[in-house]
C-alpha cells in the first residue's frame, strides 16, 4: 500500500514533526515500504480473535490514596528549558 504526500503531511501535523519537501519524498518511499511490509497482516484470518493488548492476562493493581510525593520543583525545573516564577514557559498560547 502506498502513502500519499497528503497523508504524510497530515500525519506530520498530528505528530508535530516539521517535514520539508525533500523529506516528504524520502518518506513516501520509506513509509510506503514499511506499510507494504505491514500489509501482510490483511492476509491473516482473525475472525473471532480477541485483540491482545498485553502479553500477560493480568489485571490492574490499585494504589492507596496516600500522598507519597514531595515538592521537587527546584530539581525538576533545573533541567527545564525555560521557567519563571515556578512556571514552565512556552510561546504565547492563543485560546
Amino acid at each position: 500500500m502506498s502513502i500519499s504526500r497528503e497523508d504524510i503531511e497530515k500525519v506530520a501535523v498530528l505528530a508535530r514533526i516539521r517535514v520539508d519537501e525533500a523529506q516528504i519524498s524520502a518518506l513516501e518511499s520509506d513509509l510506503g515500504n514499511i506499510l507494504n511490509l505491514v500489509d501482510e497482516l490483511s492476509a491473516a484470518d482473525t475472525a473471532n480473535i480477541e485483540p491482545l493488548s498485553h502479553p500477560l492476562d493480568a489485571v490492574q493493581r490499585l494504589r492507596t490514596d496516600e500522598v507519597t510525593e514531595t515538592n521537587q520543583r527546584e530539581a525538576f525545573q533545573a533541567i527545564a528549558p525555560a521557567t519563571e516564577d515556578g512556571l514552565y514557559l512556552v510561546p504565547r498560547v492563543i485560546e
Partner: protein
Amino acid sequence: MHNKSVAELSRELESGKISSVELTREFLDRIKAEDKLYNSFITVTEDQALADAKTADEQRAAGKASVWTGVPFAHKDIFCTNGVATTAGSKMLANFVPPYDATVTANFRAAGAVCLGKTNMDEFAMGSSNESSFFGSVTNPWGLSSGDKRVPGGSSGGSAAAIAARLVPAATATDTGGSIRQPAALCGITGLKPTYGRVSRYGMIAFASSLDQGGTMARTAEDNALMLNVMAGFDPKDSTSVDRAVPDYTATLNEPLKGLRVGLPKEYFSDQLSPAMEQQVRNAVKEYEKLGATVKEVSLPHAKLAIAAYYVIAPAEASANLSRFDGVRYGYRCENPQDLNDLYTRTRAEGFGDEVKRRILVGTYALSAGYFDAYYLKAQKVRRLIQQDFINAFKEVDVLMSPVSPSPAFVQGANTNDPVTMYLEDIFTIAVNLAGVPAMSVPAGFVDGLPVGLQIIGNYFEEARLLNAAHQFQQVTDWHQKLPQ
C-alpha cells in the same frame, strides 16, 4: 582481571586479592584506552565509579558485602540514573540529567555494584545496528581484522560491544523486538530478555510499553543469572510489573538437562537463514542432545506475521510514548520558537533522528481515523494468534531453539538505506516480544570469524530453565570465552 566473569570477580574481591577501587580503575583505564575504537559508552562516570568502589571496599571490609558489592558494570543509557546524563541515544535528551533513578538502577545501587557509565544504543532503542544513535555508531569488536567496521547489532549494541571488548564484565540492556538477543549474538556474548513484567520498567525510557523489557548481558549464563537476581521483582511503581516470587536464578544452573524437551520451530529454519548459520545452530542443538535433551520439530504457524504485527504495534505505542518530548519541561528545545506550533514541530524535527521520526509517523498513521481497525486492531488480533502459537508449542516442549539473526554482524552502512531490510534483522526475535515470553541468546559458533547466537525461548517466567540450559551448554562449549583479536 578484565577477562574474568562477574562470578569470578566477586570471588576475587571476596578473597581480598584485589580491591574494588583497583578493579574499577582497571576497567576505566581499558575504556579510556580502547573505547575510541568502539564508541560503546556515551558517558563514563569515572569519579562516581571510583567513589562507589571505595564505598564498596569499605562495605566489604565491614563484612557487609553481597555478590555484587564492588563489581563493575554499566547501564544501557535508557535507564534513568539520578544525577547522571540519560540520553536514550538521542539529541532530544543529550542534556537530560534525571533527578531520579530507574528501579533497575536503584536495585544495582542497593546491591553495591559499581556503575562505570552509560552505554551507547540506537536512538530510543529503535534500531538493530546501533547506527541510529545521536552519539555515533558503535563498532563491533569482532571482524575488525578484515578491515571493515561491523555493527554490534542493536539497540543494546553499546552494552554488547563493551562486554565483548572486555571494557566491562556485565551491562544492563533492553529488548523490545530483539534488542538484547541480536546484539548479544552479533558480539558473541550471552543475553537474556526476561518475561514481560519480570523486570520493572519504571525509569526505563519507553519505546513500546507492551513490548519493552529490561534484561541482562554478560559473557556467561551464570553472570546473567547474577544480574537477573538483582533486576527481577515486583515494583509497585510499574502497573505492568508482576507480583510473583523471584527464585535465586543461580540455584538451578547445574541441574542436569536429561529429558529436556527441545522444540525447533520449522518457520525459524527458513530461506532467510544462510546455510552456514543454520549449520552452527544445528551443531549447538546436537550438543544439547549429547546433554540428554530430546529434540523435535514444532510449528509456530503465525510466526511469519510477527514482523508485520510488530511494525504496527511498536510504532503505534511509540508515537504516543514519544509525545512527551515537546521541548517544554526537559530535553532539547529549538532555538527561538516563533509560536507554540513552531516550538513543537521544530523541536521534534531537530531533536529526533530519521528512524525515530519514521516510526512515529508510521505509528501515528496506523492509529489515525480510518486506519485503526485495519492496522492496529488487526495487529493486536494477530498478536493473540502469535501468543497462542507459543502456548501450544510449550504444551509439547520445554524450550524452543532457533537462530537469533539471519546473518552475522554486517558492515556498517550496509542496511541504512532501506529501513525494511534492517527490520528483517529481527525476524527470529520479534515474536517472542509479542508473546511476552523469555528468551536468551547464547554464543554458539562462528561463521567467517563472526559470532553466531543460539536463541533459547522459554515459557512464561521460566528464566531459570533458560539460564540452566545456557549454563550447561557453556560447561561443554567455549564459544562464550572466545576473544575478538
